[in-house]
Each structure stands twice: as structure tokens, then as C-alpha cells.
């Protein structure tokens, strides 16, 4: 095998310019894939991180049927005290995968500055739990938050900046919240604006926060009730396995109809950004397909030329007793060698390009979050998969020319001039 690769390398060196051009093409392809994967994957992770860490969490638990009518923020599908205890036990039993969780009561209300009224979507939270489950929520608040674990106090409200603008409200102003209870009656409470915040769902978002105890008072909830649990995982990359574990355990809890009492959703089920993330993944796959095409065509071309130029040589080695299988390997080795060398060089340049991008401190803004620095990275497994794709395709594209060479009749090949 060593001799086969020695001959392969020398044959590649024999046609230096041609081999160099082919290698260059593959190197550019590999660098393109690494840079594109590194940048887009990092961008995707950053955006997903922003959504999960400031709003949704990685997983959410609701009472069965809640998500299908989530737009109405129903109150009759709340999880009661017994349900909370069951959920809490499951969450605490899986502390090796779950970092933190937050109980929420989500509801719609009318907000008034005593002159004008508008609708608002509110989330009642325990501030310490919420800050642990979605720590980057604080980045969305316009004013400084001295104690993130107490970012919303009882008697206070955080309102979205578009409503603050519309109703000309600022921190310190008094507002009245009016909401329907689950039995249909109406109740109101007076609160003070503590902060304004960026719309969580974009410029038209109407999401605000109050303390969960205030929510209970407003909604006349006696005892313990919530309608959402946001969960933060220790390792977001293990979302699928964590979702599976949690699903299996939660589905053990049955309701009166002997059906699962709870439903579990990942952030991707709940956020439209998951579609964008899928598009980014598709783009990465597309770039990889382009790379495969580059490698396939360039190596097939160079190897076919190599076979046609060396017909007489193939006749000679065949005449002196080289088995067809060894002739096949001689040509496959050339394709593999070209693929391996180009991949290694491409990998080095690609990783170096990512380092340069990181050192360049390229920054961008996403909503309230200004000056986000693009920190590109590529995982060793990603690098390995790109390299393996190129090497395998190099082998596959060499196969046809190699088979052609190995099947040549020596007497015909020797006649070739």
C-alpha cells in the first residue's frame, strides 16, 4: 500500500500544474464550506440562544390542549397545585439535564393610563426563577436592572416600549390593569411602571411582565396555579435527548380521561425562527452539495485525463503481471491522495479564516441587542464530516477512471501510442 501511494504521489507531481489546479479548486470548496458553516452555524446558534435565553427557554410544559389555543392565552387550562407538584418532582428528578425552570401565568389584559386603554399580553413570573431560566431577558429591558433576581417587584409592571410610547408612559407612572378571570368576571389592579422593554416578538410585540403574585390577585386565583413552565437545559445541544427523556416521564402523568396531563414543546415548536434555522441548515447542505459537485467533477476529470494519457503505461504494468485490482488501487490512490492533501490544506486555511473573522471583531445588531460580535466556530465533528465527504467523494469520483484502467486489455493498451 505504501508503494501504491508513493507512485500515486509521484504521478500527481508528474502533472504538477494540473494537479495544483484541481487541488486549488477543492481547497477553495473546502474553505468555502468551513467559513460558511462556521459563520452561519454560529449566527444560528446566537439567534437561537437569544430566543431561548430571553424568552422561550429550551423546553416548555403546558397542560394538554394549551398550545393549540395559546393565541387566546386561556385561563381554564391552568396547571393546578397538584400538577405543579408532579411537574416539579419530574424536573427535580432530572436535575442532571435541567439547569433551571420558571413558572409563568400568561394572560391578556387591558392597560390604562387613566386616559387611554390598550390591550397587553402579560406574563406573571417569580423574578428569581425567570432570571435563572431566561437570563438574557435583562438585555431586553431598556433601563438598568440593579438586581436581575428581583427584576420585577410586586406592585410593579414592565411594559413594552411601543405601548409606553403610545400611552406616553415612563418608569414611575401609575397604570391600571383590567383582566377577565377564568369564570368571566372582571377585576382590576393598579400598578406602577418599573421598566420598559423591547418587544419580545419584534417591534409590534405587546408583552409585559408582572410579579406572579400580582397576576394571581388580578385573576383572582386562589392557591397555586400556573399555565406555563419554561425550562433551561444544562446543555442546549442535547435538546432532542432531553426532550425525549422529559416527554417519557411527563406522559406517565395522566388526566381524568386517562390521557397525558401535560404537553411538552421545544423552543423550535413554539418559535417561527425555527424555520429560519432550518433554512440556514438547508443552505449549509446546499453549499456542501456544491462542494461535492466540485470535488466529483474536478477529480473525475483529472483522473480520466490521467488514464487516457497513461494507456501505454497501464499496458506495461499489466503485461509484467500487475493484477487488475492493484491497477484499480493505483488510480484510486491518486484520487484519494489528491482529496486528502486538498482537504487538509483546505481545513487549515478554513480554520485560519475563521480565526481571522473572529479577530476582526465583526459585530451586528439584533433588536435591542447592539454590537453582537460574530464569534465563528466550527466543531471538530463538523470539520471531520466535511473532510470525510471530500475524501469519500474523491474516492468515488476516481472509481470510474480506476475501473476503466483496471479493465484495459494489456494487448490493446500496449498498442496505444
Amino acid at each position, binding site marked *: 500500500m505504501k*508503494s501504491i501511494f508513493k507512485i500515486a504521489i*509521484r504521478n500527481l507531481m508528474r502533472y504538477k500544474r494540473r494537479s495544483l489546479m484541481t487541488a486549488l479548486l477543492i481547497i477553495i470548496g473546502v474553505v468555502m464550506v468551513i467559513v460558511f458553516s462556521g459563520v452561519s452555524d454560529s449566527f444560528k446558534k446566537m439567534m437561537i440562544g437569544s430566543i431561548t435565553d430571553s424568552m422561550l427557554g429550551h423546553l416548555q410544559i403546558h397542560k394538554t390542549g394549551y398550545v393549540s389555543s395559546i393565541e387566546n392565552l386561556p385561563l381554564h387550562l391552568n396547571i393546578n397545585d397538584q400538577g405543579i407538584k408532579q411537574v416539579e418532582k419530574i424536573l427535580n428528578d432530572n436535575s442532571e439535564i435541567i439547569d433551571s425552570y420558571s413558572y409563568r401565568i400568561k394572560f391578556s389584559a387591558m392597560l390604562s393610563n387613566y386616559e387611554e386603554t390598550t390591550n397587553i399580553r402579560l406574563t406573571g413570573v417569580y423574578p428569581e426563577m425567570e432570571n435563572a431560566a431566561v437570563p438574557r431577558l435583562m438585555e431586553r429591558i431598556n433601563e438598568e436592572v440593579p438586581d436581575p433576581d428581583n427584576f420585577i417587584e410586586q406592585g410593579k409592571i414592565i411594559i413594552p416600549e411601543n405601548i409606553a410610547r403610545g400611552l406616553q408612559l415612563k418608569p414611575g407612572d401609575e397604570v391600571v390593569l383590567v383582566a377577565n378571570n377564568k369564570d368571566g368576571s372582571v377585576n382590576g389592579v393598579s400598578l406602577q411602571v418599573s421598566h420598559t422593554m423591547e418587544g419580545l416578538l419584534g417591534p409590534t410585540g405587546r408583552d409585559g411582565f408582572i410579579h406572579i403574585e400580582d397576576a394571581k390577585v388580578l385573576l383572582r386565583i386562589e392557591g397555586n396555579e400556573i399555565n406555563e413552565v419554561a425550562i433551561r437545559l444544562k446543555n442546549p445541544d442535547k435538546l432532542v435527548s432531553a426532550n425525549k427523556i422529559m416527554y417519557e416521564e411527563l406522559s406517565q402523568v395522566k388526566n381524568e380521561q386517562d390521557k397525558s396531563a401535560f404537553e411538552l414543546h421545544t423552543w423550535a415548536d413554539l418559535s417561527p425562527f425555527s424555520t429560519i434555522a432550518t433554512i440556514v441548515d438547508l443552505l449549509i447542505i446546499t453549499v456542501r452539495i456544491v462542494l461535492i459537485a466540485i470535488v466529483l467533477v474536478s477529480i473525475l476529470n483529472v483522473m480520466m485525463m490521467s488514464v487516457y494519457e497513461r494507456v501505454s503505461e497501464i*499496458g*506495461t504494468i*499489466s*503485461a*509484467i*503481471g*500487475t493484477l487488475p485490482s492493484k491497477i484499480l488501487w493505483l488510480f484510486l490512490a491518486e484520487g484519494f491522495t489528491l482529496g486528502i492533501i486538498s482537504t487538509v490544506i483546505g481545513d487549515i486555511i478554513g480554520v485560519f479564516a475563521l480565526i481571522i473573522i473572529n479577530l476582526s471583531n465583526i459585530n451586528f445588531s439584533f433588536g435591542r441587542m447592539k454590537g453582537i460580535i460574530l464569534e465563528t466556530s466550527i466543531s471538530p465533528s463538523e470539520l471531520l464530516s466535511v473532510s470525510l465527504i471530500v475524501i469519500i467523494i474523491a474516492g468515488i469520483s476516481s472509481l470510474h477512471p480506476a475501473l476503466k484502467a483496471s479493465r484495459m486489455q494489456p494487448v490493446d493498451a500496449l498498442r496505444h501510442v
Partner: protein
Amino acid sequence: MALVTLNKVSKNYLMGEVSVEALKDVNLEIEEQTFLSFTGPSGSGKTTLLNLIGCLDKPTTGEITINNTVLNHFSGKEAAMFRGKNLGFIFQNFNLLAVLTAYENIEYPLIMVQNLPVKERRDRILYYLNAVGMTDQKDKYPSQLSGGQKQRVAVARALVTNPKLVLADEPTANLDHVSAFRVIELMRKMQHELKTTFIFSTHDPKIVKEAEIVYALEDGRIINKQVN
């Protein structure tokens, strides 16, 4: 028992839609350790005959036996194995591998065909390099060698596997007279020393005289046998 036996061997080629008979009912017996030549004008069937004996091609009819082995029904792989074990080849255009040095060209069949251990391989290569007078040129590539030197390397490559039979198709055709005679002398010397059978083709009358037995071919038939 003859080393090579041809029994009523014919070979037809298709040239477009026309069948051309390159060899017609050739009967031949070649003894071991002979230095034998096929001679005749272009198109007389010399190369076809060498290709058939060299297991590079199959006869249309008739039977070829080498060293008690019938060649007719060999598969491509079996034929390659037989060639690697029993035959050596010397070509008109030398056919050295351009990317290998003289040493490596001689080494090639020992690695790729016979897979000998390193020590035995090295000793054998150095012996044959010395035998063909190419020890000083062993690290040169074919492009750095003259025609005569290339053919000496080709002779060493043909002999290094210790074949029973060496086939040389017009081995002197691309050489000047001095180099041509040196190559033939070398082949003769190796035949004496190694007791190997040499069969070569030529149309050069001066070279023909060097052979022990000469078969003259014309239009695919053996028309004369001469013992020098």
C-alpha cells in the same frame, strides 16, 4: 518436453467489418534455455505471436502451452498472475515507468507482483543492476537515461522476477547499432548465466544472426526455421 508449444494456433482480428487473419495454423515447439528470434517484414505476425505466447492475447483457434500450462482459458486475473510468475517482457519503447528511478523500475514487479521482503528485494535489484551495468545510474529517472541505458534497465526489470521465459518485441528497433548490439549481447549473456529462455522479434538481419534459432514469418505463417 518443450517449454512453449503452439498447436495449430490461428489469430483473427476484426478491422471494422473485415476479419484479418494475423496468424494461420502455427505449430511451434520451443525448448528451454533457447535464444530464439522471430523475423519477418511488418505485418508478418511477429508481434501477434509474441502477444499470444506472452499471455497478453488469446488465440482464435488452437492451443498454447507454456511450462505444461494451457493458456487458452485464463481469466484476466489468472493471466496476470501467470505473467508475473513465469514471464518477463522487454518492449520496443522500453516502457519504463516515468515516475520511478531505474532502481524503482526494477523493484516494481518485486513489490507489485511478487511482494518480496525488503532485504531479498534489495539484493536482487543490486545484482541485476550490476549485471546490466547500470549500478551508477540507479537513481536516475528514465528521462535522464539514453535509449540503450533504458533498455538495459528494461532487461533487468524483465529478469528480476526470475522468469522462465523473456519475450522481447523489437527490443533494438529504437536503438542505434552500437546500443542495439550491446543490448542483444546483454540478453545473450543473461540467457547463458541464468539459463532463461529468450524469444525476441526483429526485422534487422544483423541482429537476427545473434539468435540460436530463427523462425521466419510471412503473412501469418512460419515459412522457415534456421539454426545458427
